[in-house]
């Protein structure tokens, strides 16, 4: 009677230990919720022209086990920039599926040269995700180049005139 009580206690102890150490197998598994944002290769670091619309392609992927609803897309952009998502809202995204979104980025007409960072935010009812793209300003053939060339041409003509006028 005493031995069987010991055995019963040992069984209970082992069972309790298993419950503590192996919760994944012993308990019901939680459902995962998550989305990932992926810009197509080449769009993470892209050269853009000031004042012109540049399209980036974003893939929103439901990496969880249950649907994600009402994914609202927005961005934190530098001052004077304009960013538009198409579509701006994804109403429903099934587990494992993905949706492509076009991002129209219009930099300011006269931005500082160099790299600019934009944060792309996807906010669903269930989760939230942010990714970052780096955009480098690539100036279009500027009117300033022609102004510089024009001034240089005037200077050359002026030099030639002065040389002829005072050089005799």
């Amino acid at each position: 009677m005493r031995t069987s009580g010991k055995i019963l206690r040992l069984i209970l102890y082992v069972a309790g230990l298993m419950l503590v150490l192996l919760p994944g197998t012993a308990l019901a598994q939680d459902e995962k919720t998550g989305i990932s944002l992926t810009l197509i290769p080449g769009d993470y670091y892209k050269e853009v022209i000031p004042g012109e619309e540049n399209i980036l392609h974003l893939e929103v992927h439901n990496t969880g086990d249950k649907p994600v609803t009402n994914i609202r897309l927005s961005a934190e952009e530098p001052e004077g920039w304009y960013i538009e998502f198409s579509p701006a809202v994804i109403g429903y995204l099934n587990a494992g599926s993905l949706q492509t979104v076009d991002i129209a980025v219009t930099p300011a007409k006269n931005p500082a040269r160099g790299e600019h960072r934009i944060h792309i935010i996807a906010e669903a009812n269930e989760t939230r995700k942010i990714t970052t793209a780096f955009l480098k300003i690539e100036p279009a053939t500027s009117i300033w180049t022609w102004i510089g060339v024009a001034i240089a041409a005037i200077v050359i003509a002026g030099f030639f005139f002065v040389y002829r006028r005072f050089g005799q």
Partner: protein
Amino acid sequence: MIERVHEHIINELGSNTRTDIIFVLTAILLNLITLGVNSGIASAQNDGTTTIVMFTFVALIIVVNFVAEIGLIRGRIMRQKLLDGLLKMYKDQGVEGYYDPSLLNDYKTRYNLFMLAVLFTGLVAIIIPFIIR
């Protein structure tokens, strides 16, 4: 007396050379400094103020380069006159054979090269910042 005049001409030639060196070095140095400043301005934020500053420096380059050019032309003419006088003096003294008159042409070529160097550094200082912008 002729020795005094000779000495005076030689002194004038010396000061003429120094003045020309100052013109050339000042113009080239200013061109290079302005190239750096304007390139820095051009690669930074573009707004009305920076544009005005840039054009002010361009105006400075143009003025200084024209001053240098006129100064060099005048220096060349002055040197030619001084050397003409010197040659005449040598001729009168019967020692003109020691001075080759073709040196005058060499001086002219050298002055033209100086002016070309000033002009081209000036052009680079003007154009490069506008290309960067």
